[in-house]
């Protein structure tokens, strides 16, 4: 196993190094630089040159890269060009908000997926199944921005039941009931397609379980369909659904970018959008590198678990 780790970890490090170089280079290929965003339209070319100098952007590419990567390795992420604050603080604030939103959306998705799937499986009437299939299809097909805008109009503007956007004035932890109300619409918007997809996975898994001999026998001997589903089939159907749910959670994090923008929820999505539009190089570099690092670490962990479980993997290439 140690040998496998010695082979696998350097690969991950090389991937991260290449990604950091790519991120650093690609950002500088985007037309317009941070100096134009900082100077505004009444600046002169001399002002731009002065800002580039102050930011160190007039130095060589590799000098700039070495300075940046050196500070990142010491966990000093630098200072945002636009906001001026510590990038570490900005990212942790945005990350907290994004995690709160995606967690709420995930809870909603699980509740919705379970409810739809169990309803369709326990009471397999034609009209209910047709209805649920239709609802499922609509929930998956509707673009997030359409759902978000319709919800804002109905619940925020027309009926005034829930806040139309933003975050609780006194923070997320001051009054959890107020926070829940602010979260309701964005979490529903984000969680709706995820819940519908989850319902499809679970329904298919449950239907498959109900064709197994144990389930057929139980129903034939008089056990209610509900008991068979809830006490036996569900437990057996969950592992494959949980695997699918893992993928859906990844999609939730990606989808949060758009939902944050629609509802003015200050998470990583909004931070990234603002960073790119202001050409805030250090901020965007850290945000993208963070997502690459998370992805690489998850891959690494998955490979290590696989290798631990399967000797053929960990011994391959060792000879």
């Amino acid at each position, binding site marked *: 196993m140690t040998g496998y780790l010695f082979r696998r970890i350097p690969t991950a490090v090389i991937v991260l190094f290449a990604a950091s170089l790519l991120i650093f280079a690609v950002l500088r290929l985007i037309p317009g630089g941070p100096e134009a965003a900082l100077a505004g339209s009444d600046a002169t070319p001399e002002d731009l040159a002065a800002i580039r100098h102050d930011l160190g952007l007039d130095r060589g590419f590799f000098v700039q890269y070495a300075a940046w990567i050196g500070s990142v390795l010491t966990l000093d992420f630098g200072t945002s060009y636009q*906001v001026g604050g510590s990038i570490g603080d900005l990212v942790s604030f945005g990350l907290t908000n994004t995690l709160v939103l995606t967690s709420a959306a995930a809870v909603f998705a699980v509740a919705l997926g379970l409810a739809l799937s169990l309803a369709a499986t326990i009471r397999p009437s034609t009209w209910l199944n047709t209805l649920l299939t239709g609802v499922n299809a609509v929930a998956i097909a509707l673009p997030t921005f359409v759902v978000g805008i319709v919800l804002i109009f109905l619940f925020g503007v027309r009926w005034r039941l829930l*806040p139309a956007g933003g975050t609780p004035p006194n923070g997320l932890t001051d009054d959890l009931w107020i926070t829940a109300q602010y979260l309701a619409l964005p979490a529903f918007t984000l969680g709706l397609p995820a819940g519908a997809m989850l319902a499809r996975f679970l329904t298919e898994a449950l239907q498959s379980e109900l064709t197994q001999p144990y389930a057929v026998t139980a129903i034939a001997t008089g056990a209610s369909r509900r008991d068979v589903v809830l006490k036996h089939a569900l437990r057996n159907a969950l592992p494959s659904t949980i695997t699918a749910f893992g993928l859906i959670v990844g999609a939730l994090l990606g989808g949060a970018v758009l939902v944050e923008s629609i509802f003015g929820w200050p998470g990583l999505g909004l931070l990234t959008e603002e960073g790119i539009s202001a050409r805030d190089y250090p901020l965007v570099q850290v945000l993208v590198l963070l997502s690459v690092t998370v992805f690489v670490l998850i891959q690494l962990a998955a490979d290590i678990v696989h290798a631990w479980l399967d000797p053929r993997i960990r011994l391959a290439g060792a000879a």
Partner: protein
Amino acid sequence: MFRHQFARTLWALLLALIAVVGLSSCRSAVDAQQGPVTGSGPVVRGGELRVGVLGDLSPAKFLQIGTGGLNGHIVANVYDTLITLDHASLTPRPSLATGWTLAPDGLSLALNLRRDVTFHDGREFTSSDVQQSLLAYLAGPWKPQFKRTAAAITRYDVTDPHRVVLSFAHPVGNIFDLLDSAPIIDAKTLDGLKAGRTFNGTGPFEFASWTPNARVTLVRNNNYWGGSPALDKVTFVEGNDPKSLYTRLRTGQLDVVDPIGLTSHDQKLATSRYGFRDIEFTGAESEVYVGVNVANSALADRRVRQAIAFAVDRERIMTDVYQGAGYPVNLPWPKTSPAYDASANHTFTRDVSKAKAILAGLPPVPPIDLDYSSQGGTSRIVAEIVQSNLKDVGITVDLVPNDPTVHSSKLIGGEFSGLWILEHAFAQFTPSTLAVSAYPFNAAKNASNFVDADYAAAADAAWKTADPSSPEAIAAYRRLDAVWLKELFLVEIGVVVQHATASPNVRDVGWDRRVQFHFAGTSLTNPDRRS
């Protein structure tokens, strides 16, 4: 079996009861944020004013005008300036300076300072703070627009702590624009200001907190020299999209939205249909224009530029796009400017036959790019109208959308290949400011690549005339007008009057020529609307 069902029903009823009782005793986020939609009455102290703005605070450009609404609103409410310019005229009004004397030769200005002013940390304000503030204004990291004016100050006499004498390299016609714009900051905490940590001013509100990407909160300065403000606190709520701010205003989550926070259409809708209050910024206008790169071979001939000036339908743009919030012009001056000349604005009105007649005697004009900023949407509509107008006279235009940063970058670098749409400000200040502080008009180097010795001389003469309303100054402005109307390196479309929108619950919102809110005299008719 029956017992099971009964127990299950009982449990369900119990849970439902708990839920109903629980929810009814909880606070509603909507109720907590809503105020009355109508109301008026005496000034009542207290309450929180929630102001919607687009974009976050950006300390790196803190003293730049128009590069972020929130910066300006913080400058206007946490800091004071030496004077303030009157809305209707350019007359300076006392603020931290109680009086002033300009030397007859225009080479020095003595200002008497208030004696009862302290910074928020308790330190007394003195004349050396004026010197330190103006030096910090110049030093950056920000690139403020009046830096040429500040750089013309050659000496500061601060021997008397309550009087400062500024000496100039030459008479400076727009010195009061600088003194109206440059806030008095605390040099001792300058590093904190640059880092966005410390905002120590002398203004009516103290900086309390900043949650990046979310909100900035100011609290009342009880020791304010101008009297303690009525509001307990002001919270600036950041939005990333005008539609989102409009929705939050309509649903009672916001009390005021600043002019760049709403589209003209939504602003009009809120005030005409939903009873919101309109705050008009007459005296803080901006101007929309078609820029022309005279280095483009198709546009090098002045007659082509004249044909463009005759082709543009200014009336339609001002009526349809800006919903009547402005008026068409040929020159950049708003009606409130001493340089405004109504008769000059009839030089170019839409006249398709005249434009065609001019172009008939010229070689065919090849297709020209027309750049516009993709932010918002207003520029795109203006660009489409101009494209259609030019097609009517036989000029083909290709639209080029840019994100705001690329648009700025092209402007400053003079890299627009043909035409572009943009708004400029600074015509609302002393007229000479336009030619020395607004880059599109900069006589030394500008986005149009227009260089002309007469223009440079006229701009210099206007700037170096000490009294900006003297006959000599007016003559200098007329020289600038003549160059603009003849050379047409910028084809002005119209003056845009900015509008903000407020709930009827909000009274007496102040503002300045930089489109910044001043809340020192603002109050809420029902400040206890929320707990």
